[in-house]
């Protein structure tokens, strides 16, 4: 069959339309304040001043986001990987019920979780702290992580586990030295998504970490501009561009993991 020659140009146009908002954000972030309102298609009145403002004002927030992201990844992996091994390979009693709970857990509205966390944190003094935000953000990733790991570990041949046992390895040793190295790719997928979700989180940040000063993440850094009397679109869009860097890196460097993660959540083969 002859390849349809028109598909590539049409796909380019469609991609252009889809990504127009992203281009528009970049465009504004490089346009001088006086010219932003002119809404020109290119940053004719070019400047990098808005990025200077970002460097000046947003660095603490970026640092917090990085810390929260890394903490969320660590917590998610530590909880999800062993649990998945128990579910997939050690035939945990009641495993089916637990998978059901995990699916349902993902469907709880975030605002309900936020309200619950807020009242608990209020009593425990965990409001406006990094550990508090890490704990809350991890709830976005843990059920997904357990399901992704479990699906992968089911595919590990049982002989491999048996062989390790015959060599006298304990369950823990088998998990650490056999299962974990094989599951590397799943771990990378989980880590990437856990990081991205924690980095992108607005809901928990805006409820549990509203008054944390520099201990607030970058999403709050952007949100600050919205509340301001005179909305500063330039610095705001420049911050948005900087906040999008993890997304860009993910798409450029880790595409195959992204595809694995998107399909794992919804469609089972």
């Amino acid at each position, binding site marked *: 069959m002859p390849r349809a020659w028109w598909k590539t140009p049409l796909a380019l146009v469609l991609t252009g339309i889809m990504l127009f908002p992203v281009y*528009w954000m970049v465009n504004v972030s490089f346009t001088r304040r006086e010219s932003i309102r002119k809404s020109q298609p290119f940053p004719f009145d070019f400047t990098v001043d808005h990025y200077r403002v970002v460097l000046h004002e947003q660095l603490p927030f970026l640092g917090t986001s990085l810390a929260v992201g890394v903490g969320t990844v660590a917590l998610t992996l530590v909880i999800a990987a062993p649990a998945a091994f128990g579910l997939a390979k050690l035939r945990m009693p009641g495993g089916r019920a637990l998978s059901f709970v995990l699916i349902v857990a993902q469907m709880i509205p975030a605002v309900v979780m936020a309200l619950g966390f807020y009242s608990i944190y209020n009593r425990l003094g965990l409001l406006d702290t990094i550990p508090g935000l890490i704990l809350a953000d991890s709830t976005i990733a843990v059920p997904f992580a357990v399901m992704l790991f479990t699906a992968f570990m089911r595919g590990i041949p049982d002989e491999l586990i048996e062989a390790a046992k015959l060599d006298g390895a304990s369950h823990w040793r088998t998990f650490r030295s056999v299962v974990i190295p094989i599951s590397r790719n799943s771990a990378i997928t989980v880590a990437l998504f856990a990081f991205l979700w924690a980095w992108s989180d607005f809901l928990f940040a805006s409820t549990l970490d509203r008054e944390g000063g520099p201990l607030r993440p970058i999403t709050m850094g952007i949100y600050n501009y919205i509340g301001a009397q005179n909305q500063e679109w330039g610095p705001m869009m420049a911050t948005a561009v900087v906040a999008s860097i993890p*997304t860009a890196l993910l798409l450029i460097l880790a595409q195959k993991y992204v595809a694995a993660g998107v399909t794992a959540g919804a469609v089972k083969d």
Partner: protein
Amino acid sequence: MTNAAGALVAEATTTGEAVPPRPRRSRARWAAVAFVAPLLVYLVVFYAFPLVQNVAMSVQRYDRGTFVSGGAPFVGLDIYREVIGQPKFWRIVGQTATFTLVSITFQYVIGLALAVFFHRSFKLSATLRAMFLVPWLLPVIVSATTWQWMMNPDNGAMNTLVGWFGIEPVWWLNAQHSLMSVTIANIWLGIPFNLVILYSGLQNIPTTLYEAAAIDGAGPWRRFWSITMPLLRPVTLVTLLLGLVYTIKVVDIIWIMTTGTGTSQTLATWSYGMAFGKGTSGVIQYSEASAVGSILLVIALAFGLIYVAVQRHEEG
């Protein structure tokens, strides 16, 4: 691979040699529990506890003072009655339904069209398909502020666009139009998810079916309705139900764009606004927020259970 491993295990058990002795099996059970225990504790502390806390707040009358000091009086279902009795309750339910249904319909139709378009690979198709994921992977606050800027009434990109079609500038984010505007932005956010899921669904349809149909003289339109749509039915159901559960609880895109002003108020943003609204609600109403949250929870879980049932059914 799983099947091969299963066959090996079955073989081992019939030959009788590799059957583990009983004590070892029960020890494996305990090991399993030990491996899963942190997750169980985690689920109780970080899911069940906040949930219970949310429900508890909705049956006690909290205000700023009692929230800090404790000792809010128990009032049963009074707060639910008050919330549902408010004139705007059913209006907000309707807006939530409109937002959700319009979003998932357009996300699905556009996602499916794109999935079919990308189905047969062409030059650059993999790269461009990956670019389509961008809206889904961007932090929502980034997308929401960008849409807010594009929808500004003076000279936003959206008004330039509609201007080309001779339409007067629209005040996108005012009370009257805000529902339409946040829905447009949300459709844009959801297209990638639909595209990816439906695309992988299409990959599972055998090409031979299309070839046979083509030989029988079926055109592309006919092939789409007689092969693609029927075989895609399970994936369609799963996609729509998941989309529904995720969309019904959306807060961030709406709140950032409009703070739930006017028609864009949904159950989720209403609940959020009453407890955490930045200057939008004079009095903080934790109990009312929790009651609305619990109502939303029940709706989301109801559709979630349908989703699980459908998925189990499809798995056989």
